[in-house]
């Protein structure tokens, strides 16, 4: 892989509310290289988005605060940058595509204006040139009639087109890192595939590192090089794409994979959910947040967070179940039986 773009070590982001401290992200570490795609998966409230927003220091403060960890963009520590310096990073070095294109564009400003303003801000271009570049970008992300479209308002765009415009906005300053926060969740399935294709194309063209936040394992399987599985604000397992799909070690990862619909199932087979509710982030157990839902938990799980255990090349897991026992349990799970053969 290419040059190292980002090194996150022990990131913790908490929200200090009247109800208590919401520990949204707890000691998360990961890295991202040029041209690499990192998938962050986990259910709602697992801390994926907060982790990504922390990278851009976009956590609303108050009540949110990055309480621990280092965020190194190359050799710059993002936590130590001044407000002015972090604004230079936003949109220029790290850009973000948000979940809901219907609400993420300003309704009263023209699309061209919203794309051009980032170009004017970061690339020292004049207004005319920036608008011309905006039209070219729209064309690049596959919006027909881009010359005309730059002069339109968001309400004149469909959902898929708006998301394309968001992508155009994000890549406008050729960022090193592109964060896509559930970019396809709010779109229809046919549009989803197109948007993923556009993101992939742009990554190839601009040689960016991509962080793809999603709960759609299908999307991850398609474009991610490596995956980080988050639960209750912690990384429970990370590894290369093949490792996570074919050699998963954490019971939560098993549950995620097991809950996917399968082609060989008949229509009448019910999906297999992970039973229970996600944990209350204000009252997390001091140990593994998955306790209570984990089918294989033991007494130590509740009180102590397990150390990182390296189980393969670039593959780590945090779990108290001994490795040989994990392999045994996994082999007995119905959806892993075919791999075992």
């Amino acid at each position, binding site marked *: 892989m290419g040059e190292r773009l980002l090194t996150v070590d022990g990131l913790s982001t908490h929200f200090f509310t009247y109800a208590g401290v919401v520990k949204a992200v707890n000691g998360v570490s990961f890295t991202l290289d040029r041209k690499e795609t990192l998938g962050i998966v986990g259910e709602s409230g697992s801390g994926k988005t907060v982790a990504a927003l922390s990278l*851009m220091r*976009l956590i*609303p403060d108050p009540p949110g605060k990055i309480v621990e960890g280092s965020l190194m963009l190359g050799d710059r520590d993002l936590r130590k940058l001044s407000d002015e310096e972090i*604004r*230079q*990073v*936003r*949109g*220029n070095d790290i*850009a*973000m595509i*948000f979940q*809901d294109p219907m*609400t*993420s*564009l*300003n*309704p*009263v*400003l023209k699309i061209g204006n*919203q794309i051009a*303003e*980032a170009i004017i*801000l*970061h690339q020292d271009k004049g207004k005319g040139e920036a608008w011309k570049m905006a039209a070219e970008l729209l064309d690049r992300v596959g919006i027909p009639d881009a010359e005309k479209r730059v002069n339109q*308002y968001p*309400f*004149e765009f469909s959902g898929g087109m708006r998301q394309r415009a*968001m992508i155009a*906005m994000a890549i406008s300053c050729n960022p090193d890192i592109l964060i896509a926060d559930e970019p396809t969740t709010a779109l229809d399935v046919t549009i989803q595939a197109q948007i993923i294709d556009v993101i992939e194309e742009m990554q190839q063209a601009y040689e960016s590192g991509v962080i793809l936040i999603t709960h759609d394992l299908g999307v991850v399987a398609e474009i991610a090089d490596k995956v980080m599985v988050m639960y209750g604000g912690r990384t429970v397992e990370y590894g290369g794409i093949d490792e996570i799909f074919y050699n998963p070690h954490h019971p939560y990862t098993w549950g995620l994979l097991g809950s996917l619909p399968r082609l060989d199932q008949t229509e009448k087979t019910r999906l297999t959910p992970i039973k229970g509710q996600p944990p209350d982030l204000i009252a997390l157990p001091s140990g593994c947040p998955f306790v209570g839902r984990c089918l294989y938990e033991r007494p130590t799980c509740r009180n102590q967070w397990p150390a990182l255990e390296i189980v393969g090349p670039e593959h780590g897991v945090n779990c108290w179940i001994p490795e040989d026992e994990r392999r045994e349990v996994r082999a007995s799970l119905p959806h892993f039986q075919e791999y075992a053969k």
Partner: protein
Amino acid sequence: MITYIVRRLFQLVIVLIGVTIITFLIMFAIPGDPARQLAGKNATPERIAAIRLQLGLNRSLPVQYVKFVGRLAHGDLGESYQLQKPVLQMIWENAPNTIQLALAAVLIELLGIPLGIYSALRQYTFWDTTLTTAALIIWGIPVFVLGLFMQWFFGLKLNLLPLIGAGDNVLWIIPANWNSFASLILPAVTLGLIEVAYISYMQRASMLEVIRSDYIRTARAKGLSERKVVTKHAFKNAVIPVMTIAGIDLGALMGGAILTETVFARPGIGLMIYQAIGARDLPVVAGGVLFATLVYVFANLFVDLGYAWVDPRIRLEG
């Protein structure tokens, strides 16, 4: 855009017909007889009957209404029973003071927009709490109570400003001299202050909602400065709902003008209507209400046009 304005003007005609009917019905429903009132306490029944005949009050209500509308179509609002002056002339004489008062109040009202935005951007700080609390208290004070307080404090206690009345105007609505301007200050502040409170409170709520929206996060993620985020991305969106409220609020302003003019004994449409109601002077009441309605509907039209100017969704989908 032009079809939109034409359509609105057609609606105006319907509104005016409705308003005249309602005004007529209300004036006939309330107790008291204009003829008896005009004739005086010791009038003979014959004299009252003669006045009634003279004013056309002996005819049925629909006939009177049709005659009223017929005259109205020729620009004739009739004559005041009491003063025997054409109503149109009375309106012409009284309108400048009222329009002056309302415009001054609107100018003061606009202060609510920056105040509300300031409050929202410093949510839960000392100044936000102070402004919000003050706004809620002022908003809760009836306009005549605030007016009396203003008179007592600034007029009697401090002896700074005239208590009552109004001065001469040039160019119809511009105060001709300092005295004329001074007599405008207390009524305008009284009327405007309550609206400032209302507008700033609404503006604060609207700004708070906008500043937390997804597109503001997008703007921040581009690296824009907080100043640019507020002025370019948040301001327009946050002002749109307040403009709507301000438009609807013009009705309250007209109602407030009647009370304010009464408290400050300030000649104007409000005082004219108030006195005409007491005297059962039907043509004056009808004319005054009609005028107030016209002002209200036109003001709303302008607000809606401004609204379309700010919000492309209205302008283009119209």
